[in-house]
């Protein structure tokens, strides 16, 4: 009989918050208000100029100004080199990153790592940590003064602005405005992605870009088509009829996988959020004339809650969907979709192709994306954006020459998709880590083991693309959906702004809100209890957050 140590309690608490924090808090880094990529609203800070690369690889599906990413059907046959010579000076460069892949072999057994060192002209010392334990490790590194040269800043650790100012380099003089011309590949990163690294009037790092494209409400297109149903309902009522028609519990088939993907914002979409989108509710906060209103406070949200509870009552939502708290149900929901035991599920746009990879339903399998319809004739539906960047890389304070050297390395790493450098960095050594098959690059077993786990992609990266190797249909479908979804999307007006109360309290407050929502959806509490939950959110910190964000908004005009 082991005694549960206090350490388990503390560790469990702190690491679980990192897990919970990484999701919703990422949304808080990002763009400003309005449709599409936002205008600059931290005008005090000089962001790097955007100088798109003209000689780079050509995409099959072109990127659009609205924020739609470029799409590639295959990796280009002749990858161009976009840099000259080695950027490094032979020193050791240490970097701390999260890893989302199995640990890579050590340097002496890792062909990829050795090749990378050679191409860069430095010795990379990668210090990785599994995502769930990121916060703990970061904090001991800071407390123990053991920070490496480069640190991945993921989510918003509390007191981030003060932490950045105390330990990390303000990069404005190196990258602001035209200074970024020294690093042409970094200049290739559009302005919107840099905003996530701005705090306290300084630019504190280089972003890892993703996309403003938010979650997609997926559905099993093959099953819906086989039943002759309309996959794009034009009102909430039609949506419910669709759910009713595909729901079949006796055969272990439920219409909806995910009842509620809320967790304090972030743009993740479950059934509740989808209905909110139908009603035109903005993402997290709605901004009008300098004042902020939280989505939870809107009457439309109360209505969406009532509808979701009805759907649960009607038995259209998978009964096990409320699963375990700290473990992400995402994988389970995806599995239900693949198994056909659920038909509709909201998930990240990057999940489009992985559905096909886990496909067991045969060649007719098809995934589609459903846009939220206008709830009724009186509403205007919206989709939600995501935080454009995944994280940013911060530089430990160091002499200027060292910073410039590190920036040269990051410049190399920002080589765009389709280039020779990107091929080496993300796929490894030809013949060992990957081979050409069917005109496309295919990783070998060695490649899968050596590359992902090293986490180099989180140190420096170019703008993202839509690319699903071996799944050209998925790539095209995803690209087309982006073209439709982004123009009707809204962003969270508070992204890119820092609120101390949010950073410290959101995990716990959002957890309480989620609990209230779960209770209402499952029918344990009446819809009328929502008002009380919002009220207690407001007094416990919500109003405080609001005023901090409004302050920040005012200061950034």
């Amino acid at each position, binding site marked *: *009989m*082991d*005694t*549960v*140590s*206090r350490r*388990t*309690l*503390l560790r*469990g*608490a*702190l690491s*679980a*918050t*990192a897990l919970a*924090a990484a999701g919703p808090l990422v949304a808080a880094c990002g763009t400003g208000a309005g449709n599409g990529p936002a205008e600059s609203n931290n005008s005090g800070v000089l962001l790097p100029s955007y100088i798109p690369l003209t000689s780079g690889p050509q995409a099959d599906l072109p990127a659009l100004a609205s924020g739609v990413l470029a799409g590639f059907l295959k990796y280009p046959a002749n990858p161009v080199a976009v840099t000259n010579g080695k950027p490094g000076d032979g020193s050791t460069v240490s970097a701390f990153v999260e890893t989302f892949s199995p640990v890579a072999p050590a340097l002496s057994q890792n062909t990829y790592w050795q090749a990378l060192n050679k191409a860069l002209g430095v010795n990379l010392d990668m210090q990785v940590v599994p995502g769930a334990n990121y*916060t703990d490790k970061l*904090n*001991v590194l*800071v*407390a123990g003064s053991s920070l490496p040269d480069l640190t991945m800043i993921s989510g918003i*650790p*509390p*007191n981030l602005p*003060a*932490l950045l100012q*105390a*330990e990390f380099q303000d990069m404005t003089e190196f990258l602001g405005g035209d200074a970024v011309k020294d690093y042409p590949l970094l200049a290739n990163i559009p302005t919107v992605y840099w905003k996530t690294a701005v705090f306290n009037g300084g630019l504190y790092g280089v972003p890892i870009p993703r996309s403003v494209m938010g979650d997609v409400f997926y559905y099993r297109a093959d099953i819906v088509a086989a039943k002759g149903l309309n996959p794009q309902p034009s009102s909430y009522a039609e949506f419910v009829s669709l759910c009713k028609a595909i729901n079949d*519990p*006796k055969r*272990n088939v439920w219409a909806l996988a995910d009842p509620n993907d809320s967790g304090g914002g972030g743009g993740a979409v479950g059934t509740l959020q989808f209905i909110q989108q139908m009603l035109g509710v903005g993402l997290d906060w709605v901004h009008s004339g300098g004042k902020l209103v939280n989505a939870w406070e809107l009457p439309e949200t109360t209505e969406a809650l009532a509808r979701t509870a009805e759907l649960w009552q009607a038995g259209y939502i*998978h*009964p*096990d969907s*409320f*699963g*375990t*708290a*700290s*473990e992400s149900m995402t994988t389970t929901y995806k599995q239900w979709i693949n198994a056909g*035991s659920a038909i509709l599920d909201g998930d990240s746009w990057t999940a489009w192709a992985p559905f096909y990879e886990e496909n067991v339903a045969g060649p007719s399998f098809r995934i589609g994306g459903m846009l939220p319809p206008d709830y009724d004739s009186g509403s205007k539906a919206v989709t939600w954006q995501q935080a454009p960047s995944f994280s940013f890389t911060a530089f430990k304070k160091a002499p200027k020459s060292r910073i410039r050297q590190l920036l040269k390395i990051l410049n190399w790493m920002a080589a765009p998709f389709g280039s020779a450098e990107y091929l080496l960095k993300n796929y490894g050594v030809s013949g060992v880590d990957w081979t050409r098959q069917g005109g496309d690059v295919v990783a070998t077993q060695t490649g899968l083991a050596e590359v992902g786990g090293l986490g180099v992609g989180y140190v420096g990266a170019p703008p993202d693309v839509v690319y699903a190797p071996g799944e050209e249909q998925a790539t095209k479908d995803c690209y087309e959906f982006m073209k439709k979804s982004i123009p009707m999307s809204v962003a969270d007006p508070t992204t890119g702004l820092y609120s101390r109360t949010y*950073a*410290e*309290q*959101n*995990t*716990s407050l959002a*957890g*309480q809100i989620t*609990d209230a929502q*779960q*209770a209402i959806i*499952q029918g*344990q*509490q009446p819809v009328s209890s929502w008002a009380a939950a919002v009220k207690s959110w407001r007094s416990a910190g919500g109003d405080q957050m609001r005023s901090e964000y409004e302050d920040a908004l005012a200061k950034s005009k």
Partner: protein
Amino acid sequence: MAVRGEAPADEVRAERSTSRLRRAVAKLRRDRALLLLAIPGLALLLLFQYIPLLGNIIAFENYEPYLGIIHSQWIGLSNFSIIFNGNPEFLDALKNTVIITALQVFFVFPVPIVLALLLNSLVSERLKRLVQSVLYLPHFLSWVVVVAIFQEMFGGSGLLDDWLRAHGHATVNIIGNSGLFKEMIASQVIWKDSGWATILFLAALSQIDAALYEAASVDGASRWRQLWHITLPGLKSIGILLFILQLGSVLSTGFEQIILQQGPVGIASSEVLSTYVYHNGILAGQWGESAAVGLVNGLVGVALVLGANKIAHMFGEQGIYQS
């Protein structure tokens, strides 16, 4: 000592304390070999547990890692307020914790003892070893896996409900039933850890002198009387010891296990003290508050352990230490 009549109190006291000191020194000299043996273990404890414990000073600070312990702001007892701010949810959590602890005491704790006795009475040594090796397996699973397994069995689309649904009965969804939550938690603990705890009791049983059993059966004592008079007393001291030690960690009852399963049943029926503190106070990065909670947990644990030990003494048992 010669009779002195009215000796001055100071002198008597001085004499007593010097003789006490002398006795202590004599004891030290007598036991020094023993104490030498204690040094490596104690040194490790002092260096790697007690020195870092000094770091709990941050319970009184507004600690930031980049400022360090010395430079972080001193805020006295503010961090402790999360525990004592009179929230009604706190009382709910307290109630749930007490109920779950009671279930632990009356239903979970005896199981390994019963299992140990059962195994002990098996005739076949091989069977005993085999069963033992099977029963302790679940201990190695993490709570995440155990909860997943229980969900597979008892969840809304688990094996049980699937079977019920297929045969036209109403489904029960045990996992989602808030009325059964505490019992579910206790069952999970039994399933996961009983086999493991049995090992300890089996070891205690093996220390019992076999001759006692022989003498008893020669005297005509039935199996039940042997159990009552020989076996159970043999387990008593270790059982009481384990019970008291468990009390020390009652405040952190099942944190990992419970936090994973609150979703389907809601907070009111599932919140215990450790999860309450987590939800209401372990804010992201609040190191000072975490340390404060750790301190309070420890102090309550000390009180419970020492108190339980005293009670054990009242019943004539040894407990952890004799007074």
